[in-house]
């Protein structure tokens, strides 16, 4: 694949005048086989971009839902190598849906930044979000990612004031992730008007697509954000549903996730038409 999957996908959504749905699941949650099935079904369900969580023992920017997802995944024996293998398998049938890895720096550091970038690129990864690697510390990873054409997606937050924003945006690529609430994942949702104001402010400062996440759980909330942002990220709500289904020992987890994602996708994809109507 020569063209950049992320820019191609965001351009296609913009051309259709609709927001993109970005879904987050933790790799290996509740186990690798189920997780691979969930992943394979996401594009057909309507996910435009897929974020895959790399599990970590100490996910300190995550709320209880994703913490539990991380622990389920680690208990099932997930490693970074297995996460990359899962993406490689996915790419055999889907070479268009962008995939962004999301996680914490220590497992990447242990793997080795250069080896990580090489193998992630080979597996068909498009970029990554490293929660605890602010621009000031990113020097240890960025050269490796850049030399393999991988994006390091930056995060802007409600605390990114005019003074801070230039540091966040300098060297940002792929898209800009706006963390809509100061808090951990799974927190309460932000008011739609606050999000609209924040997106407008970010748009004035960058040409990158803006994805908004944190606290988006329902199709209604997703639609409200899709009216303003280029993309809407839903994570904890899906991970919560996986956790609940795993607890029941359900054997139709991928189908349940697909149904949930389909409802979110309808809301996100139609939001601007419904608003205009």
């Amino acid at each position, binding site marked *: 694949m020569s063209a950049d999957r992320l820019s191609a996908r965001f351009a296609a959504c913009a051309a259709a005048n609709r927001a993109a749905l970005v879904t987050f699941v933790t790799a290996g949650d509740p186990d690798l086989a189920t997780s691979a099935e969930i992943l394979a079904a996401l594009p057909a369900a309507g996910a435009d971009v897929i974020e895959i969580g790399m599990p970590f023992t*100490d996910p300190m920017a995550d709320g209880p839902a994703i913490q539990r997802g991380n622990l389920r995944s680690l208990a099932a024996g997930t490693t970074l190598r297995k996460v990359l293998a899962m993406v490689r398998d996915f790419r055999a049938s889907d070479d268009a849906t962008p995939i962004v890895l999301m996680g914490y720096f220590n497992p990447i550091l*242990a793997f080795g930044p250069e080896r990580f970038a090489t193998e992630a690129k080979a597996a068909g990864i498009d970029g990554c979000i490293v929660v605890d690697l602010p621009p000031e510390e990113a020097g240890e990873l960025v050269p490796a990612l850049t030399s393999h054409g991988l994006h390091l997606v930056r995060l802007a937050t409600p605390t990114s004031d005019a003074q801070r924003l230039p540091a966040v945006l300098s060297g940002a690529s792929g898209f800009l992730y706006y963390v809509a609430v100061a808090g951990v994942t799974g927190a309460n949702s932000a008011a739609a008007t606050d999000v609209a104001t924040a997106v407008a402010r970010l748009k004035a400062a960058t040409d990158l697509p803006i994805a908004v996440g944190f606290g988006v759980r329902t199709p209604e909330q997703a639609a409200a954000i899709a009216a303003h942002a280029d993309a809407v990220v839903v994570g904890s709500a899906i991970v919560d549903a996986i956790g609940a289904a795993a607890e029941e020992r359900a054997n139709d987890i991928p189908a349940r996730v697909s149904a949930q994602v389909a409802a979110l996708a309808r809301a996100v994809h139609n939001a601007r038409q419904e608003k205009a109507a």
Partner: protein
Amino acid sequence: MNAPTTSLRAGPDANGHFGQFGGRYVAETLMPLILDLEKAYTEAKADPAFHAELDDLLKHYVGRPSPLYFAERLTAELGGAKVYLKRDELNHTGAHKINNCIGQILLARRMGKTRIIAETGAGQHGVATATVAARFGLPCTIYMGARDIERQAPNVFRMKLLGAEVKAVESGSRTLKDAMNEALRDWVTNVHDTFYIIGTAAGPHPYPELVRDFQTVIGKEARAQILEREGRLPDLLVASIGGGSNAIGLFHPFLDDDGVRIVGIEASGKGLDTHEHAASLAGGRAGVLHGNKTMLLQDEDGQITEAHSISAGLDYPGIGPEHAWLHAIGRVEYQSATDSDALEGFKLLCRTEGIIPALEPSHALAAVARIAPTMGKDQIIIANLCGRGDKDIFTVAAALGVVM
């Protein structure tokens, strides 16, 4: 031509690095806050009024200076170097932790923050934080691992008496590292009004620097006291290491004194050859956790492994970044003491000096018992007696098979 002398006390650099260690590995939401904190701390350091208030509280509220005590019977028993104990266990609240808490709460007030949070392991930092929060009339929430709550019941009750809310942390290993995760989650959620008082010389820059600075009162006093008492510097400093705040507090003022040998003692739990220890220098690798790069107990996939020590205050899989650096450059020597070594050190001090030490400095005492006999009688050791043992009597009783 004189070679330029570089002080070992000059770190960290402008980005908070001590060599390859340290830094600011935090979620973007927190970056503006820790940059603000750095600015506020830089201003406070240059403000004589800040120091005047700090010194006044340390003197009249904490009870400083703490004595430097010549442990005569311990020295005789060990039959080697003269052992002095820096008596920080006599501080208000019973440990060195309060030195740092007073400093940080003055910063919090300066920054207009109205709510205090902290993590705690043994409960000593939690008690010290709850204490200063009460003293300054600020509401306070303490995160404590559920397992530590079980083994440090007296301190949990103390914190509650002092008006703090104690939140049990049930995630992960249910100890100090998980309490720190939870405190960081609280902070990122309540950025507008909350000040996070970190209890050890670790975390994102500027915490390792400012905690160290507030704890160096230990080493500065000890240096002046030994010079007055013996007319010379000590031959050896010994301190126990959890995150490393009492140790760096004692060591830092002596780092440029080449003749002073410095030894930090990690907790080796059930032994370095088992997986049940807390010695991140002896058994760890460089990694990133809790906002800093440092030496960490972790598996080959970079997942953090659980630490173990009989002492809740040392039961942490990491160590402050300045220690990781001092270890890498070889200026400080790091050894370890096991749970049973620490129990022996504990009993030794009770018996010879009539002082019940906390289990944390009992690790340092175990090392003193090992090293002092190998030194000459004219040599001098200063060990940091950084906490008193009242909080540990139930743990010690259980370890000794005593039913209370």
